């Protein structure tokens, strides 16, 4: 009987677990304050690349694999995240960031077109794990500020910081 119940629970939880990785995303109209007009295509590319960087961030921190960050992060953001993953490795922990929702707005596009800023009101669960053991799970409501710069083929996150709410 107990085994049946466990199987049923696993079967029910599987679709939920898969779904949990797909956060809801709301993209608000840009608020650029006259800095530089933003083409719609550029805006959508930036949002796509930013969300992809979250996926890379999640995988890298879950697996303690800093190389997974290299495509999406550069500069100060990459250095900082690399350092934290190294810290995690030393402590024998890893963290799983599961985003529940993103509410994004592009708030700045530099006049020279070389940097762009996104504010992301993100809701995520941070799960701190030691091997397969969950040490703690905390829901977090954060206001992230990301600065992205263009590379040859995509926008990369150069700066990534949770700011005061």
């Amino acid at each position, binding site marked *: 009987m107990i085994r049946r119940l466990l199987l049923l629970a696993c079967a029910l939880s599987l679709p939920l677990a898969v779904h949990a990785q797909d956060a809801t995303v709301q993209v608000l109209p840009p608020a650029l*304050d006259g*800095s530089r007009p933003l083409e719609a295509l550029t805006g959508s590319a930036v949002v796509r690349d930013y969300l992809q960087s979250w996926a890379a*961030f999640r995988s890298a*921190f879950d697996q303690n694999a800093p190389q997974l960050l290299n495509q999406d992060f550069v500069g*100060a953001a990459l250095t*900082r*995240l690399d*350092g*934290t993953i190294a*810290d*995690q490795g030393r*402590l024998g*922990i890893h*963290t799983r*960031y599961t985003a529940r929702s993103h509410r994004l707005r592009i*708030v*700045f596009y*530099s*006049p*020279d077109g*070389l*940097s762009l*800023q996104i*504010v992301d009101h993100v809701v995520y669960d*941070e799960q*701190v794990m030691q091997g397969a053991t969950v*040490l*703690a*799970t*905390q829901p*977090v409501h*954060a206001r992230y*500020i990301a*600065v992205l710069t263009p590379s040859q083929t995509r926008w990369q996150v150069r*700066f*990534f*910081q*949770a*700011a*005061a*709410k």
Partner: protein
Amino acid sequence: MSLSRWFLLAASALVACPLLLAQRPSMHLPQQVVAGSAFSISTGGSGQGTLTIVGPGQALRRSVQLGSPVSIPAGVLYNAGDYVVILANGSDEQAGLIEVTPAQQPARLSFLAEPSRLPVDLQNGISGTVYVFDIYRNLIVSPMPVSFNLSDSLGPAQTRTVTTRNGVAWTRMNSAAKEGSARFVASVAGVASTRVIDEVPGDPCNLSMTAVPDKGGEAKLQTAPVRDCSGNPIPDGTVVTFTASFNGMQSTVDVPLKRDIAEVELPLPSGASVSVASGVVAGNEIHWRGQ
């Protein structure tokens, strides 16, 4: 079960429960701490425990004595962001959140000025963007006034003060009327960053030439000193093109400017017409009569 056994069990429970409860770790976290500042976390419980602080910016762990406050010294937790804090004692733990905010004193500016070289007298031709960081390279997101100052060797400096929004401020400036190097300075609360902008002459203005016969009977074509519309001499090496047309035939000569002037000698038949141009700027036209 005999009464004495019940009594023993109850007595054991009475003794053990407070001990168990006393060992459960608990803590009181400050909601916010400033990046790099010292702070303290008060803990409850007894025995040894571990305190783990982990977020995207940092991960660290300390051994702690439960029941005593845990002091985190200055300079230990310095990357701004949200952190999960876990106080653990064996299998018991308590978790909470702490927010690390940037220090409010700017220490570094990321200042990008574009372009590094441009023609003189261009309205809003120069842009400057500044991101303001604290000593730990956290973006200071609270509004701060940034002063932009563009000065050249002659004219009065252009100054603008712009308040940061989400840690960034930007402006546009005009290039000066006179060629030369301009210093573009951004400063916030005593921290400054300087970029040098090379302001070069613009396109030639009022390009004109004269033609006189030389000793061999050829036409000597010579421009007046070539200057831009603000009177700055156009740099040596700038190409000036002379074009001669006669009976449907056309020939051109490219001549680099030397000491503001371009000159060339051409064998021109009487009745030929000659024009002069530099880049997209056209000058006057001369009908050559051989004299």
